[in-house]
C-alpha cells in the first residue's frame, strides 16, 4: 500500500506545522537555557522544529519519562492501599514534530526491549497514540554517525511522517505509516499539494546523498561489533575510561538508555512509588545489600555501557542499541566520544 506524499514551500511547511498544532496536542523542541527539550506547544513561535541536533534533547522522556509515578499508596494501620496513578498524560493522542531520524530510530530500538516478554503497556499506549514527524537532517553534526550503524537511515520507517527539505528548495512531506497517512489526509495539508513517488524519489535521493556525504565519522559497524564481542577482557577499556568522571550525563541524554530504578517516597501516610532514570555508570548500580558489587571499577561499568550499546543488545534483540546521535559525546563534560571508544578498543584488541 502506498502512502501519500505532499510538496510545499517553506511557508507551506510552517503552515502545515501550525495546522497540526491547532488541531492536535503537539510536542516540539522548545529552547530553554540554550538547550532544546521537547515540550507541549501551541504555536510555532514557541518552538523550533529545525532545532540543531547538537542542542536538542532526545524524545525519550515523552515515552519513558525521567520520573514516572508507578503508583500511590496509603499505608495506615487499617491496611495498605495501592492505587494506580491517574490517567497517563503521555498516553493521549499527540503529535511530536521536529524529531531527528536518530531519535525516531531510538524508539524502534526501544520497542524491542519493551515488547519482549512482559509487554510494557504504558510505553505501548504512548507509542500507539503518538504520530512522529521526523525531519531528515541536511547536514551531519560533528559527532553524528547514524549512517555507520546497522540501520538504513535513508529508508528509515521509524517515523510516521517524514519531512525532507528537498534539494530543489521545496519541502516534501511523506507519510510512512498508516497513522501518518491518516493525519496527512486531514486538512493539515491544505497548504501543500499531493505529489507522486516518481517526482519525490529522485529529490529525496539527492538530498540523502548530500546528507550522507557530510559525515565526518564513519565506522565499519560489522567489524566493530564482531571484534567487540570477542574482547571482553581487553585492558584497553581501562585506558579509554581513564578520563571519564562518572557523571552519568551520557545515560541521561541517551535516546536508548533505558535503565531505571524504583524508589518510594512517603509523606505522612501516603506515598508514591517512582520509577526514575538510572545509569550503569553509577558505582552503586549493581551494589547488592550484602555489599557484593559485580562491577565495582569504573572501567567495568564503562565496558558494560559500551558492550551493551554495541554487542549485548544486538545479541539479544537483533538491533544495535546505539543509534549514532552523538548526544552523549556532546553532553560529556570531558568530550569522551563513544565512537572513538569503540573504535579504539576494537582496534587495540586487533593488535593484541
Amino acid at each position, binding site marked *: 500500500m502506498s502512502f501519500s506524499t505532499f510538496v510545499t514551500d517553506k511557508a507551506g511547511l510552517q503552515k502545515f506545522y501550525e495546522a497540526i498544532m491547532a488541531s492536535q496536542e503537539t510536542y516540539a523542541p522548545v529552547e530553554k537555557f540554550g538547550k532544546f527539550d521537547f515540550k507541549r506547544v501551541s504555536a510555532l513561535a514557541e518552538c523550533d522544529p529545525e532545532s540543531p541536533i547538537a542542542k536538542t534533547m532526545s524524545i525519550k522522556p515523552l515515552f519513558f519519562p525521567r520520573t514516572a509515578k508507578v503508583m500511590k499508596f496509603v*499505608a*495506615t*494501620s*487499617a491496611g*495498605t492501599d495501592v492505587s494506580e496513578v491517574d490517567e497517563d498524560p503521555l498516553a493521549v493522542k499527540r503529535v511530536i514534530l521536529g524529531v531527528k531520524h536518530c531519535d525516531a530510530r531510538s524508539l524502534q530500538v526501544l520497542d524491542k526491549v519493551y515488547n519482549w516478554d512482559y509487554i510494557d503497556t504504558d510505553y505501548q499506549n504512548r507509542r500507539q497514540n503518538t504520530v512522529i514527524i521526523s525531519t531528515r537532517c541536511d547536514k551531519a553534526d560533528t559527532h553524528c554517525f547514524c549512517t555507520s550503524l546497522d540501520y538504513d537511515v535513508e529508508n528509515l520507517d521509524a517515523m510516521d511522517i517524514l519531512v525532507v527539505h528537498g534539494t530543489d528548495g521545496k519541502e516534501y512531506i511523506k507519510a510512512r505509516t498508516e497513522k501518518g497517512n491518516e493525519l496527512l489526509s486531514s486538512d493539515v495539508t491544505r497548504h501543500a499539494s499531493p505529489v507522486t513517488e516518481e517526482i519525490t524519489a529522485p529529490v529525496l535521493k539527492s538530498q540523502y546523498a548530500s546528507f550522507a556525504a557530510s559525515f565526518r565519522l564513519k565506522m565499519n559497524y560489522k567489524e566493530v561489533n564482531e571484534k567487540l564481542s570477542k574482547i571482553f577482557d581487553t585492558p584497553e577499556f581501562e585506558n579509554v575510561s581513564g578520563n571519564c568522571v562518572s557523571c552519568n550525563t551520557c545515560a541521561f541524554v541517551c535516546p536508548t538508555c533505558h535503565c531505571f530504578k524504583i524508589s518510594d517516597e*512517603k*509523606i*505522612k*501516610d501516603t506515598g508514591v512509588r517512582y520509577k526514575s532514570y538510572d545509569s550503569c555508570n553509577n558505582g552503586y548500580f549493581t551494589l547488592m545489600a550484602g555489599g557484593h558489587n559485580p562491577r565495582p571499577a569504573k572501567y567495568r561499568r564503562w565496558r558494560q555501557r559500551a558492550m551493551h550499546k554495541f554487542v549485548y543488545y544486538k545479541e539479544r534483540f537483533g538491533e544495535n542499541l546505539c543509534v549514532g546521535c552523538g548526544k552523549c559525546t556532546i553532553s560529556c563534560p570531558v568530550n569522551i566520544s563513544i565512537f572513538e571508544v569503540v573504535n579504539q578498543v576494537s582496534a587495540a584488541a586487533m593488535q593484541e
Partner: protein
Amino acid sequence: MARVGVFVCFCGANIADYVDVPQVVEEVKRIKEVKFATEYKYMCSDPGQGMIRDAIVQNKLTSIVVAACSPRMHEKTFRKALSDAGMNPYLLEVANIREHSSWVHQKDKKAATEKAMDLCRMAVAKSIANEQLHEISVPVTKRALVIGGGIAGIQAALDIADARIPVVLVERSPSIGGKMAQLDETFPTLDCAQCILTPKMVDVASHPYIELIPYSEVIELQGFVGNYKVRIKKKASYVNFKTCTGCGACWQKCPVKVPNEYNMGIDKRKAIYTPFPQAVPNKPVIDAEHCTMLTKGKCGICAKVCDKGSIDYTMQDEIIEREIGAVVVATGYDMWDPKPYEEYGVGRFKDIITSLEFERMVSANGPTNGVPIRPSDGKVPKNVVFIKCVGSRDEAKGIEYCSKICCMYTTKHTILLHHKVHDSHAYVFYMDIRAAGKGYEEFVKKAQVDTGTTYLRGRVSKIYKKGDKLMVRGEDAQLGQVVEVEADMVVLATAVSAPKDNPDLARLLGISYDKYGYLSEAHPKLRPVETAKAGIFLAGCTQAPKDIPETVSQASACAAKVCGLFAGDTMKKDPMVSTINNEYCSGCQNCVKVCPYGAIVTDDVPIGHGSKELRTVAKINEGVCQGCGSCVAICRSMAINLAGFTDPQIINEIVSI
C-alpha cells in the same frame, strides 16, 4: 519501620481540658507503625508507667511515644519505665503536648487537638528511626587535682582524700593556707582563723591520699573527664625539701630584706623565707628575684649555715605530669586595688590602709604584735573610720557587684579595734548593712552595742589631711547633711575581685569565665559547682565572692561531685554523642575545626576490607563529645550522625505531618 506504642497523657485536666485526648489516640492509631495506643490520666504515675511496661511486653513494641509534658520534665522517668520493661530506654520519644499545645492554645480546642496530633505523629515518625543506645562508659582515673591551697582547696582536698581518693594539691605560693591564713579572727563567732585553719593544713601535709605540690602552677591540661593529663610546673625553691628540717637557720641569717607579702608589706621578710611560722610545708624557699646569690652570685650565707646542706642554688624548675580524673579549681580571690579612689587620698595619705592590712595589724602574729598603729608615725589610732563598699557596688570606679563579706568583716574589725584599743572609737560609713547568714545579724547588732561604733549611712566624698589627722567628709543620708569625721586612721573595706590570672587559667582548662574574671559555673542555680566542662568543678571565691562557711560548703560539694564521678571504675555518660561512619567519611576534617570540645581526632583506617593501605578519617572521642551536633550539620559526606538526633530522625519528623 517499627512497632510503636503511643501513650497519651491527660495530665489531669492540664492536657485533657484543652486537647481532645481520645481523638488524638484515634488519630495516632491510624498510623501504620502504631501497634498500640492508649490514654491515661497521669502517664507519669506508677499505674501509668505500668501500662507502658505491660504494653511493651504484650505488643512486641519496638519503640515508645509518650505524649505528655515537656521531655525536659519526664523523659528520664519514662526512659526508666522502658528499662524496667527490658527495653532500651532510648527507644522513647516524648511528644510535648502540654507546654507546646494544651497550655498555649487554651482558647481553641480544635486547633490544640490538631497540633497535638501532629506532634504525636512527629514523635512517632522520629521514634521509628530511633536506635538502641547504650550509656557510654569511660574509664576513670581516680585521682583529683585541686588547684589552689586556700581554705577551699584544703577542704576539697581533705574531703576527697578522706574518701580514699588520691588528690594532687597544687599551690602557687610556698605554703598552703591562702587568704584565711592572713586573717585574725573570723566572723561571726570570732574564733581565731589560725586555730581552726592550721590543723587542717597539717592534715593536708600528713594525709596519705594527698600529694601536696607547693610553689608550683598548672601549665597544661589535656584530655577529658575522667581522663585528664595535667602538667604542673614546680618552681625552683633552691631548697631540698627532703633534707631540710625547717630549722630556720637560713632565713635568720639571710641578709636580704624584702617586703613581706604575708603581712601586706608592713614588715620585711628575708630572701630565703617561709611565708609564716605555721606554713605548710614548713620549709623555706629562696626568692630568686631578690636573693643576691642567685642574681649577682654573691652571698651564699644560707648554704653555709645549713648543716643539712639543703640549699641548692642550681635547682631548676621542674615539670611534673599527673594523670587525673577531675579538677577542683579553688584559686580564691584578689583584694581590689583602691587606687581609683583618688579623692580619698589613696596612695598619698599613709594612714589610709586596706582592710587586709588592718587585719594583719590586729593579728596576734602580725607585724605590729596585734596592735593597730598608724603607718605614718607608729602611734596607736583612737578614732578610726571604716569605709565600706570601696570598689564594690560602684560602677563608675569599681565593680558592679557586692563583695558580700565586707559588711561582716568591717563589723568584726570594729570589734577587734575595740578589743585592742579600748579607748578607741570607730566610725563606719556604709551604704547598707548586708548581714544575711546564720548569726550574722545578731553579730552586727551586738557589735554595734558593744563597741558603740558610729554608723554613718552614706558615701565618703573626700578625705583630706588636717595636721596629722585625716578629715573624712561624707554624707549622712539619714540626716541628709554633710558630716566630717576627724580620724587617726582610715580603713578601706576594699572589694573582692577575681584573681588576675583567672582568664589565663580558664583558657588553659578550657572553661569559661565572666566579665569580671570569675570562673563560670554550669548553671547559676542548679549546677553552681560544676563548670560547663565535665569533670571540672569550682570551689570558693574563684567562682564569686563568698565567706568562709560558704566556701567550705562549696568545697565539700566539689568533693561530693568528685567522689560521685569516681564512684565506679567507669563513668556513665549520655549516649547522645556523634558517631562516624568510616565508609562515608571523606577525611576533610572540617568537623575537627568546628568541634568546641576538641572531641574529634583523626584515625587511620584501611581503604577497604583487608587492605593494607590506610586513609585518614575522623574519630569521635565519646568521652569528650557533649552531643551538640555542630559536626553533623557541617559534614557534607553524611558521615557523622548524632545519636538521638540523627538525620533520618529529624527528616522523619519533618515529613510526618
